[in-house]
């Protein structure tokens, strides 16, 4: 049910994820942020088992920060992606993490990149990627409308098209999405797409 997708544009990479935290038939919350800011120029969008998702992405985040502390320079996106794959691969035959990851980053030398990392530690560098049931819709939309070197406006338009498609065609479609972007100025939240807002609690 969790929808995560992303694409690479002209000098930036964008990822979008749904924001519902679901247990069986119950929606615990609909503003759960599943895209973690790994470091200044990297985003990790994760989907899968909620405990594993939070634990694993935090583990990666802290190790990426440790590398920077020890060595004085940050990891490249490719290095971070390979490190993540290594951790998933090592754990695979002992205590596997059920987390699917899209790692988006911007490097000064190589520009923006997006890495698809499966829960069984399959790593592949892609221009567009998606996980979950939503991928059946978002990948097809991106196959149709994506071209290399898209501007931010074109990319957001495509992301919105994908969200519209997921909302209208997926039976248990998540109502809200968060969109984050990473470019030369860093990784940051771009927008939310909310169709259901949590009811504000009346003060006692």
């Amino acid at each position: 049910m969790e929808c995560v997708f992303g694409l690479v544009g002209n000098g930036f990479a964008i990822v979008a994820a749904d924001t519902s935290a679901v247990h069986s038939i119950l929606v615990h919350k609909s503003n759960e942020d599943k895209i973690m800011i790994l470091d200044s120029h990297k985003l990790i969008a994760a989907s899968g088992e909620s405990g594993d998702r939070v634990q694993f992405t935090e583990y990666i985040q802290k190790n990426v920060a440790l590398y920077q502390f020890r060595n004085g320079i940050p990891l490249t996106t490719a290095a971070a992606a390979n490190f993540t794959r290594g951790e998933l691969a090592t754990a695979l035959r002992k205590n596997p993490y059920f987390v699917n990851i899209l790692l988006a980053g911007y490097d000064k030398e190589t520009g923006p990149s997006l890495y698809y990392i499966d829960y069984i530690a399959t790593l592949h560098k892609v221009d567009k990627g998606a996980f979950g049931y939503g991928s059946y819709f978002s990948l097809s939309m991106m196959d149709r409308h994506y071209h290399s070197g898209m501007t931010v406006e074109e990319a957001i338009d495509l992301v919105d098209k994908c969200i519209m498609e997921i909302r209208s065609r997926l039976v248990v479609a998540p109502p809200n999405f968060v969109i984050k972007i990473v470019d030369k100025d860093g990784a940051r939240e771009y927008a939310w797409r909310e169709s259901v807002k949590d009811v504000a609690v009346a003060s006692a």
Partner: protein
Amino acid sequence: MQIFEYNGSALVAMVGKNCFAIASDRRLGVQLQTIATDFQRISKIHDRLFLGLSGLATDAQTLYQRLLFRHKLYQLREERDMKPETFANLVSALLYEKRFGPYFCQPVIAGLGDEDKPFICTMDSIGAKELAKDFVVAGTASESLYGACESMFKEDMEPEELFETVSQALLSSVDRDCLSGWGGHVYVVTPTEVKERILKGRMD
């Protein structure tokens, strides 16, 4: 769900006159869904030795990293490249180490041995070697590949003719297999040069 058919793959290696060709498809899938159409299945170990890994992509990546590491260590100690026969033994040993929890991969090894004699072999996921004088195949399209290669193979083909033969055998076989395809990647290796070519076939 068959583990060897999770990602989909097709690999073939063929012997020519003082040369060999190794070819693979380019699809990376997750069962019925195609994730990427530019996946590299064949890796260079050294200028005269190529390794193709079919089967589960995560294990192929892990195995490749381990083998590259072992070969680099060998190069440091012995101050020379590994012979293809030696490398095949190494792969076989590494696979049998995991006899009761194997890597779900079928490797295809192709190289030029002493006196530029081409060497090809394949093995199953637990390291049972199959040497062949003419061709070896692996992957989800292996049955079609056996048929295509058997009928198209001729002894002592020159590099150009070998390229044509391998390409036709690969493309016609993957067209009958839904889990492999989306083009082809062919390496033709002679004692003097390595020619890498991308094939465009039925893109489905």
